[in-house]
């Protein structure tokens, strides 16, 4: 979930590095968490905050960690994935996170609600509206 929340807001290579920062922050702040049942929402809020800090501190000309070249699927396929991710990152904020958690991280809507602390209704609306916008932007409904 943490990676998905970050990936909705920052470039893909940065998201992997930021996961570490989020867990370090969690370890630092965990004693302050009073309600263990709120852990998911609390963790999500730290991830969102880290992503916002990262984007604020980022200058317009930044080093790109070259992690995209990692071994894995063929470059062509990965290029397509990154292109679609870029489209998602341009959607309104409310839709980005739920779409990334659903389509990248493979969580279901109920799981997203449970883990992020959002209501099921909000997640469902965000998924439906976000998917509609995404279809319009990338013509995903058409044959590949």
């Amino acid at each position, binding site marked *: 979930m943490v990676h998905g929340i970050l990936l909705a807001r920052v470039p893909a290579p940065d998201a*992997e590095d930021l996961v570490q920062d989020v867990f370090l922050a969690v370890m630092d702040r965990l004693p302050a968490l009073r309600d263990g049942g709120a852990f998911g929402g609390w963790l999500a809020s730290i991830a969102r905050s880290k992503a916002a800090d990262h984007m604020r501190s980022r200058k317009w000309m930044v080093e790109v960690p070259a992690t995209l070249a990692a071994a894995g699927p063929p470059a062509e396929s990965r290029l397509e994935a990154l292109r679609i991710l870029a489209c998602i990152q341009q959607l309104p904020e409310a839709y980005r996170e739920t779409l*990334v958690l*659903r389509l990248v991280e*493979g969580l279901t809507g109920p799981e997203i609600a449970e883990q992020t602390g959002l209501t099921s209704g909000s997640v469902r609306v965000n998924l439906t509206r976000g998917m509609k916008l995404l279809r319009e932007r990338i013509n995903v409904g058409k044959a590949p």
Partner: protein
Amino acid sequence: MKDDYLWDGSGEADPAVLRLESVLGQLRLKHSKAPVPRMRWIPGAAAACLLAGVALWQATSVPSPPDTAWKIGDRALTAGEVVITGAGETRSLWAEGFGQVELEPSGEMRISESRSGYHRFDLRAGTMHALILAPPGAFVVDTPSSRAVDLGCQYTLSVDRRGNGTLDVESGWVAFLHAGMESFVPAGARCLTTRDAGPGIPFFRDAPAGLAEAARRFAETRSETAMREILDNARKEDALTVWHVMTRTKGRQRGMAFERLTQLVSVPAEVTAERIERGEEAAIDLCWNALGLESAQWWRGWRRNW
């Protein structure tokens, strides 16, 4: 229900969602660096969740890959090399995970700078197509009259032998810069650049012909006649063009552009003509926000010259 598959994976699978899951699933976190452990007593179930997550994350750790380099085929290119295409010949350059560039026939392009996270090309002549996946600002193309800064997108840039050029953006954004002037060009828009005047006024490619022609003349001459033609021909979606006119003018002309902008989009009441004519950055910024180009918000903050 129609979106049941999107919601919880039940019901009839939506082919579009299936395809997105398949393509995007490869971006799922597979490798990362191990966190620096810190000894601390962590109570309760929260600790169990956290430690389980960290353990899973450490178990999939792999080393970082090498730096990005541009290549033609398997041959790596270095800074200073010039790529030239003959008549009927095209060249494709690519950098793993960073992007692809194709140079059309009769083109000339120099790799001016190439280092991790920052690549600068010099397009001297011809047409290039770029698909860039890197973060904004990481890929720059100089032309004789403007610098194109990629803001995460796909675009085509052409330069003629006189050094004039045309930029067509297909997706994302490109910033066109020269001598303190900036043009922000979104998907579907075009921006001309000339040796004499630098980056022009962007307009959408489906804009009325009168507006496109007036934008060209206004960029070169700053004539009030051309400006009035832009304002008169502007549709709601041409507010982007009107905003750029507003930032390239001063005093009364800026006030005229602002007035037209308020007819096209909903500008907050706190933004007054006086503030705009005084050139208050915050007010001009609010006008930009009124364009509804929200996708630009996260990068727009890095620099403002208006």
